């Protein structure tokens, strides 16, 4: 226990969050490189494989995430204005939308699974190399993204309780701000995943 632990530096915390976000973006960056290379090598297979995905589900999930990003950003304004009730509602809406996103994802994956398309499945192996890679990347990238949604939900849940207990206030809100930053990062990743898997056919 050093005397410095009581030291508070919100700007430092925010820089730290940004740096962490960079590492997260580059983590996905590695997968985007793999995607780019294999798409370049198997253009036709990727074209046909993408048509197998449920575009409506993709659009719906995009809308959910965009709205949730707006609500979490607005919850910060609410905290700044000392409108605690409003802020709680806005964070709760965000959490709900995040959970809905996961539910959709679950239905979507389950559907693929039901059709015998999952990593290492026999049906997938029959389809050919390009399809194996496309669906491999699809499961890996959306799976990793879903994992980040879960982490984001956990951070925002903590923020929700802190707002409720008045630990996040108009004079000390860096936790909510950082949680919001993380959530927006998850949103940005999806903004790229969506066209790459569902739209470019």
């Amino acid at each position, binding site marked *: 226990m*050093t005397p*410095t632990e009581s030291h508070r530096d919100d700007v430092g915390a925010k820089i730290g969050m940004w740096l962490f976000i960079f590492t997260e973006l*580059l*983590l996905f960056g590695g997968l985007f490189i793999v995607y780019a290379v294999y798409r370049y090598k198997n253009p036709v297979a990727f074209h046909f494989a993408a048509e197998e995905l449920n575009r409506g589900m993709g659009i719906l999930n995009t809308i959910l995430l965009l709205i949730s990003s707006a609500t979490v950003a607005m919850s910060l304004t609410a905290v700044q204005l000392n409108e605690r009730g409003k802020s709680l509602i806005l964070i709760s809406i965000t959490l709900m939308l995040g959970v809905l996103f996961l539910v959709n994802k679950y239905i979507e994956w389950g559907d693929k699974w039901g059709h015998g398309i999952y990593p290492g499945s026999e049906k997938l192996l029959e389809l050919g190399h390009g399809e194996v890679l496309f669906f491999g990347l699809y499961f*890996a990238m959306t799976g990793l993204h879903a994992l980040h949604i879960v982490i984001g939900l956990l951070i925002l849940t903590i923020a929700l309780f802190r707002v409720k207990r008045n630990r996040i206030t108009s004079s000390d809100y860096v936790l909510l701000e950082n949680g919001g930053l993380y959530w927006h990062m998850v949103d940005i990743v999806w903004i790229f995943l969506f066209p790459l898997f569902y739209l470019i056919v």
Partner: protein
Amino acid sequence: MSSENHSCQSNYLTFKGKYAGVWGWLFSTDHKRIGILYLYSILSFFIAGAFLGLLMKLELIAPGSTIMRAQTYNGFFTLHGITMIFLIVIPGIPAVFGNFFLPLLIGARDVAFPRLNLLSWWIYILGALVALSSQFLGSDPPDTGWTFYAPYSFRTGTNMLPAVLGAFILGFSSILTGLNFIVTIHRLRAPGMTWLRMPLFPWSLYGTAWIQLLATPIIGITLLMVVAERTLKIGFFDPTLGGDPVLYQHLFWIYSHPAVYIMILPAMGIISELLPAFARKPIFGYKAIVVSTLLIAFIGYFVWGHHMFTAGMSGTAQFAFSFLTFLVAIPSAVKVFNWLATLYKGSIHIQTPFLWAASFLFVFMIGGMSGLVLGALATNVHLHDTAFVVAHFHFIVFGGVGYAFMAGIHYWFPKMFGRMYDSGWANTGWGLFFSGFLTLYFPMFILGMKGMPRRYFDYLPEFHGLNVISSLGAMLMLFGLAIVLINLMRAARRGAAAPDNPWGALTLEWTVPSPPPVANFIDIPTIVTHPYDYSILQPKDLSK
């Protein structure tokens, strides 16, 4: 200098906090205690890794199987590589000296996120345990080499998953340390310490931290893909499923080449601290060294392809990567010239840390220049994957990082432990180590030029003579190493009390008592001068 506050506070070693005894260490958020935790863990792993290296060298003392089976040998060089790279040289200097001295050097009470710092150490230990569990759980120990090249890493029946997972976990520790250092340097410099008044070791840590942040995630995701490949058969890199093994190499080296700079930049930082201190004059070309540090960090990110010149890349890629490899040599050369110029007209105190620093210059020059032979396309084709590469790598990484680490520990030991070591034994150990080192690795350059491939359990009779010399060198070097380490361990317990500033150095860590008090500084100092402004000392102080 300002040592009137000696008795005001208990020092960090004896301080009693919330937890007593060993728990007071394992759960301490004091950056100094965490630095010592890293020191002990890294040294233990290093002794184990060095011993594995010795066993490998003994195996190679004669062709054929001498003391072990091929499977054991392949397991040993894999474990040697994983331990040395992921557990020792990548965290090495930043985790030990960075943690201990970064706040002291910039006039801060701790790093920006002390609890995160402690978490990094715990993650490090967890990663180490997971990686090492590969030796004891399941089937044979992994035998892929530390590079985990696809598709062999999917084919081998050995227990390589824990090793990969361990490396993945260690990446987190590295990222969090880097993040912590960047924020610390941005936010916690003492008043008056502008960027250009910051000592060079913090500068090198800053450059390093950025590479840690921007490169480590790539290896993280790559290793996760290997795990997914092995467990779920996704087909990222498996040619039978359409994957491309060469893409694995790209991703692996996108991290692992910058990782070499994660290793060497802090080493360069330590040397840049030591040479002015022992020559009693400012570092020559402070700005040039800062700029070269940042350039190395940046260009070093884009030379990874030089590990793949025989892998069948496109001609354009070969051209570009070879070209950039030569460019990145320039800032390193500039550093060497500046270090040499620092000694010019100095007043050189030839003490143990200086011996290590001077021998660093020598081995680093050999290591760096042999890198030029490997950077050229035609000669690389001949030398790639031969003993030459192994020699080059050990000159740079062991010669560079190892010597700088030794220089650093002998330099800062009095500050860290408040005690002094026996310099007679320290110098003897250095002499034996240095001669053993050259005898061990220099013959491997020639072996490589003659065409002996690396990772060979057995070799043709024509390579015998040089291998014998090399193996004898290994024994000599480890003998020297044992003397060095035993000397230090004895001093940590029983050495004579060290003064606050035994070397007459100027940076801030020498203004606090040895060992430093818990809060580092009674009052945070205000900086008004350049860190190496030795002109402020009177001549009579200089000759002390």
